[in-house]
C-alpha cells in the first residue's frame, strides 16, 4: 500500500467521522441536499420532509379492489385527516401501512429509506409507526398502569422483558401520560372496566408512551362524549409538529376542529383519492357531495 493511498484513506475516514458527528449534532443531520447521504439500516430518514409515502397501492380481496392505485404523501409533523364513506378503504390503507395486509402492487415508504412492505407488523411498530384501532383494543385483564407499561418504548425482546424493571424516568413518563389521558385515578383498575371513551383514551395513551413518529388513528373519537372529543382534538393538535398524524374520522365537527380551517383533508372513495384540499373546499366539491349523498 502506497503512502498516498493511505493518506487518501485517512482523509476519507475523517470526512466520514465528521459526517457521523454532524448527523447526531443537528436536526437535519447536517445534510442540506440528498446526495452522499449515509442511510443507516433500520433508521428512517426524514430529511426530505416526507413521513409516509404510499404510491399506487392496490389491494384486492377476491377481485374486489379495496384500494385502487392509492397515492398519498404525509409530511413530517403533518396532521392529516382522511374522510370517506364506508368501504372507501380507509382501514385497509392502515392495514397496508402497518403490515397487516400486503398490497398486490405499489410502494409504501416510511421516511425516504424504509420500505414498509418488507417489514413485519412488530418491526413496523418498532421503527416508529403506532396504530389505534377502530374498536378500542386494550389488554382487558391488565390494569391501566400495566397497559401503559407494556406499550412504553423499550426493548421488546423476550430476555429484556423477563428482567425488566421500570426506571424512575419511565415511571414519570407513565405518570405524565396518565394525567394527559385523564386516567390517573384509574391507574390500578382493570382496563376492561373502563368506559368505551376511557378505553379509547387509554389506547391513545398507549400510543403516546410508545413514542412513534407516525400515529395512525382509526376513528379515535367514536363513542366519546362531546367534551371528550374536544379534549382529544386538543391533544392531537398538541402532538402536531412533533409527530406526524393520520386521522381517519367520520365526525366532521371533529375534523373541523383538527384542521382549524387551514389543513388538508383527503377524501377516499372506492380505494383511491377522490379529492384533497381544505375541508370547506372538499365539502363543496361536487364529486364529494355526490359520493356522500348518493347519485
Amino acid at each position: 500500500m502506497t503512502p498516498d493511498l493511505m493518506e487518501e484513506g485517512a482523509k476519507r475516514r475523517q470526512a466520514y467521522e465528521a459526517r457521523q458527528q454532524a448527523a447526531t449534532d443537528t436536526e437535519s443531520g447536517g445534510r442540506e441536499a440528498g446526495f452522499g447521504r449515509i442511510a443507516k439500516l433500520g433508521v428512517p430518514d426524514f430529511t426530505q420532509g416526507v413521513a409516509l409515502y404510499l404510491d399506487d397501492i392496490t389491494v384486492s380481496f377476491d377481485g374486489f379492489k379495496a384500494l385502487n392505485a392509492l397515492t398519498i404523501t404525509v409530511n413530517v409533523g403533518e396532521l392529516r385527516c382522511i374522510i370517506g364513506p364506508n368501504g372507501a378503504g380507509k382501514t385497509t390503507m392502515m392495514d397496508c401501512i402497518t403490515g397487516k395486509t400486503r398490497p398486490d402492487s405499489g410502494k409504501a415508504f416510511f421516511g425516504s429509506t424504509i420500505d414498509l412492505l418488507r417489514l413485519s407488523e412488530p418491526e413496523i411498530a418498532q421503527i416508529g409507526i403506532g396504530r389505534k384501532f377502530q374498536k378500542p383494543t386494550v389488554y382487558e385483564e391488565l390494569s391501566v398502569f400495566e397497559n401503559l407499561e407494556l406499550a412504553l418504548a423499550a426493548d421488546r425482546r423476550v430476555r429484556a422483558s423477563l428482567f425488566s424493571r421500570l426506571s424512575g424516568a419511565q415511571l414519570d413518563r407513565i405518570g405524565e401520560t396518565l394525567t394527559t389521558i385523564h386516567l390517573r385515578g384509574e391507574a390500578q383498575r382493570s382496563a376492561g372496566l373502563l368506559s368505551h371513551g376511557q378505553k379509547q383514551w387509554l389506547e391513545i395513551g398507549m400510543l403516546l408512551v410508545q413514542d412513534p413518529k407516525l400515529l395512525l388513528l382509526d376513528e379515535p373519537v367514536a363513542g366519546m362524549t362531546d367534551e371528550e372529543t374536544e379534549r382529544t382534538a386538543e391533544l392531537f393538535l398538541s402532538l402536531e409538529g412533533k409527530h406526524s398524524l393520520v386521522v381517519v374520522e367520520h365526525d366532521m365537527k371533529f375534523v373541523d376542529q383538527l384542521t382549524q380551517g387551514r389543513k388538508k383533508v383527503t377524501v377516499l372513495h372506492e380505494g383511491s383519492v377522490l379529492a384533497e384540499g381544505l375541508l370547506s373546499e372538499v365539502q363543496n366539491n361536487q364529486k364529494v357531495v355526490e359520493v356522500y349523498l348518493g347519485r
Partner: protein
Amino acid sequence: MTPPRSAFGAPPQGGAASGPAEPVPRRPLDQTALVQRRGLLLGVRGWAAVICALALLTVVIPLLNRVVPDGHVFHVSDYAVGLVGKILCYAICALAMDLIWGYTGILSLGHGLFFALGGYGMGMYLMRQIGRDGNYKSELPDFMVFLNWKTLPWTWSLSDSFVLQMLLVVLVPALLALVFGWFAFRSRIKGVYFSIITQALTYAAMLLFFRNETGFGGNNGFTDFKRILGLPIATPDTRIVLFAVTGVTLVGFYLLARAIVNSKYGRVLQAIRDAETRVMFTGYNPLAYKLSIWTLSALMCAIAGALYVPQVGIINPSEMSPSAGIEIAIWAAVGGRATLIGPIVGAFFVNGAKSWFTVAFPEFWLYFLGALFIAVTLFLPQGIAGLFKRFSGETREKHS
C-alpha cells in the same frame, strides 16, 4: 372448549399476602409502592406458605409414613403416599397448562404427549436398570427378547446413564415442542385450530408408540421396574424419597411460574391472550413469547412424567390418549385459570374425587367428570380459586 372471555381469572397482583390492588380514585399514583410490590416474588405470608408446603412434603409426610407406626391415627399409609405423589405430578402438569392456557390463552390438548415422552424417557432408564433380572434373564429388556431383537435400537444408546438419559427426558420433549410450536405459531395458528392440531399430534404419537417396531414396548409399554440409581424401586423408603422430590419440584415450578407471571414477560403473555394484534402493533413479536412459554410448559410436563413413572411403575401409550390431554385442561379449568394456586388445587380436587368415585361408583366416574366440567364452566368461570376469592371478598371488580 374455550369458555367465555370472562372465564379468565383476574391476574394476580404481587404477592399473595400483599392483597389485591384496590382502585384508589383521585389519589396520586403511589409509584414507589407499586414498584416495590412488583419486586417481591411473594409476600411474607406467601413465603411462609411455601416453607410450610415444603416442610409438609419433605419432612412431615415422610415422617408420618415411615416413623409413625402402622395403625396409629397419624400414620400416612403407603397407598396415600403413592396417590398423593401421583397427584403432585398431575399438579405440575396443571401448572404447566395454566402458563400456556390460563396466562397465554393457548389451549393445548397435547400436553399428555409431553408428559408421556418424559415418562418414556425415564422408563427407558428404568428398563435398563432391570439388568438380567427380567423374565428372560437377558441383557436386553424383556419385550425386545420377546420380539427376538439382538441389539438395542439406537434410540436406547444413552439409556444406561442416568444423567444422559435425564438430559434426554428434558431435551426431546422441549425440542419437539420448539419445532412444532415454531411452525404452528409462525403460521399464526390460533384458538381451536391449535388445540385440534396438538390433539392430532398426540394421537399420531400414540399410534406410533403402540407399534412394536418403534422400540418402546408397543401397547404394553414399560413396566416391572426393579431399581432406580441402584436402589430397589418398590420399597416404601424409595417411594417416600420420590414423593419428596416430586413435591420439591412442584414447589420449585410454582415459584418459577410466579416469577414469570410477575415479570413484564408474564404481562406480555397476558396481553397476547387479551389482544394479540395490539401486542404486535406495539412492537412485540408474539412468536418469541409464545414459543418460549410453550416450550417451558412442555418441559415442565415432561419432568412431571419422568417423576410419575417410577412412582406408578408403568408407562404405556394410553398416557398419550386424547382424554389424558383433555383431563389436564380440566384440572386447570376446575382449579381456576390465570391463578397459579388454582390448577394445583384443581389437580388435587379432580383426582381426589376420581380416586374416591372410581372405588365407590366406578361406572359413574366419567359422567361425574363431565358434569363437573359443565358446572365449573357455567357457574364457576374462575374455578375453585375464583370461588375462594369471592368468599374472602378479595375479588376484583367483575366485568359489567
